């Protein structure tokens, strides 16, 4: 029996795995101690739980537990990683290189740094969403202290050439930070093999709780330090003060462990479903996948349906299917997705896109239902679209002088 609504917006957030919730519960009312309480069993238990979780998190990404700083999420990790490096390495330089398709948490942090006198280069991406490595290397100068490029994009799922970026960074003695929020737990991420110096990720994108994440900060080759952005009791090796969210951390640890153990089999199943969905929807005329299809997360698909507007499209089924048109963070504005614009998409295609994010809990029945609903709605809206009619008549819409309001 298909339960509605169907949730396919897993890039925005994921449901918690019930097994994760189970591990967290004792830490709310039973083992509720503050992990920093050194002097009694309540504190010791909490500390032990945190240590264990720290190992679980570290294991998922190939790091040492000492290299994990717990944060309130990826946004905080972006702030701490980028501002933290900027402040710590101020003597060395003040130039940061990033890309124009980064998450707002990175872009806004960089804007803040520019206001404080720092210099930021925002690289353009190619049409498929990938960074041009030559552009990256050319942008490096003596004052460059950090390259910040996301592992995988939240809107189109494109995976950047992380190993190559890391190699370029290393070659020039520049630190490499990556926002891996969409990648960790979904594809193999190894900070040693990938050559990453700092990395942020969060629990709620991998079937864990909201409000908890981690920043990986490398300790060897080279030893990296960040200036704390939250001052207080000196927690997390002085890099992030604040009482630890013990239940959140416990859940996050469990979520990481489950991903590490189940990622491979999940991926096989989920990518098949994603491909089924994509293949079926591409059968509709004038439907296009946005972003590189080869270097892409296995559970993501971003498709534009030309001549049909995205919000109007969503309205056809959003009571029954949860999706987004563009990222959740940009949906409050009337602007089309800046990530899609960065790919060179015309406004009309950017306005016409749907983002699908599948999960461990997505079933084939849900996908079949989605295919049917979306196809029906696209066809219905095309019947109502003056642009579709013009297209069918062979009118070149670029030649029309639109009466702008």
């Amino acid at each position, binding site marked *: 029996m298909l339960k509605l609504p169907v949730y396919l917006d897993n890039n925005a957030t994921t449901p918690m795995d019930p097994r994760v919730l189970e591990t967290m519960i004792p830490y709310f009312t039973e083992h509720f101690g503050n992990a920093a309480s050194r002097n009694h069993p309540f504190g010791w238990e909490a500390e032990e739980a945190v240590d264990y979780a720290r190992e679980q998190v570290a294991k998922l990404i190939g790091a040492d537990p000492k290299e994990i700083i717990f944060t309130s999420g990826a946004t905080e990790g972006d702030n701490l990683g980028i501002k933290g490096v900027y402040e710590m390495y101020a003597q060395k330089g003040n130039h940061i290189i990033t890309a124009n398709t980064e998450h707002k948490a990175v872009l806004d942090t960089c804007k803040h740094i520019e206001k404080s006198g720092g210099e930021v280069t925002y690289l353009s991406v190619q049409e498929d969403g990938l960074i041009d490595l030559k552009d990256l290397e050319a942008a490096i100068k003596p004052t460059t202290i950090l390259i910040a490029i996301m592992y995988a994009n939240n809107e189109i799922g494109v995976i950047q050439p992380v190993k190559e970026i890391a190699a370029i960074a290393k070659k020039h003695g520049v630190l490499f930070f990556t926002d891996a929020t969409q990648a960790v737990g979904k594809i193999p991420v190894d900070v040693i093999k990938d050559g990453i110096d700092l990395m942020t990720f969060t629990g709620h994108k991998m079937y864990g709780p909201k409000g908890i994440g981690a920043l990986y900060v490398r300790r060897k080759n080279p030893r990296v330090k960040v200036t704390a952005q939250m001052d207080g009791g000196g927690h997390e090796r002085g890099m992030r003060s604040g009482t630890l969210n013990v239940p959140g951390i416990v859940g996050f640890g469990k979520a990481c462990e489950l991903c590490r153990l189940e990622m491979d089999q999940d991926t096989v199943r989920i990518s098949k479903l994603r491909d089924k969905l994509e293949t079926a929807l591409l059968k509709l005329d004038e439907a296009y996948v946005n972003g590189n299809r080869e270097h892409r997360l296995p559970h993501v698909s971003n498709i534009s349906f030309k001549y049909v*507007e995205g919000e*109007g499209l969503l*309205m056809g089924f959003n009571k029954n299917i949860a999706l987004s048109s563009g990222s959740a963070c940009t949906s409050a504005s009337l602007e089309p997705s800046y990530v899609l614009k960065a790919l060179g998409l015309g406004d009309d295609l950017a306005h016409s896109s749907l983002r699908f994010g599948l999960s461990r809990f997505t079933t084939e029945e849900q996908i079949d239902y989605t295919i049917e609903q979306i196809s029906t709605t696209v066809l219905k809206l095309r019947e109502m679209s*003056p*642009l579709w009619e013009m297209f069918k008549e062979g009118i070149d819409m670029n030649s029309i002088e639109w*009466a702008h*309001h």
Partner: protein
Amino acid sequence: MAYSEKVIDHYSNPKNVGTLDKASKNVGTGLVGAPECGDVMRLQIEVDDATGIIKDAKFKTFGCGSAIASSSLATEWLKGKSIDVAATIDNMDIVEELNLPPVKIHCSVLAEDAIKAAINDYRKKNGLEELVFEEKGVH
């Protein structure tokens, strides 16, 4: 974003979707908006020459639910009105009828523009002077 019931109704059961023969002398066509803005409306009216009454109205819209509803509602209101009365339809009437939130008011403005554009197209074709409409302030 919660849509009003009326918007949802117009979206699910749009009134008067279609195309009139734009070459015909009795038909006025208004095409407003732009693909870059995510809103394009085409509103057409068929006018009875003898009486000046709008006999039929059709629309097609590329846009969100509120845009579709605004143009659908417009076609309903146009049928049976004289072109002079139709020219007085104000976007705020549409906003009130559909309960449009502030962020969607521009959809109603576009619908009003479409109505006026269709009327002027008809007038032009029939040797009547085109009406001059005051530029609406930005809402």
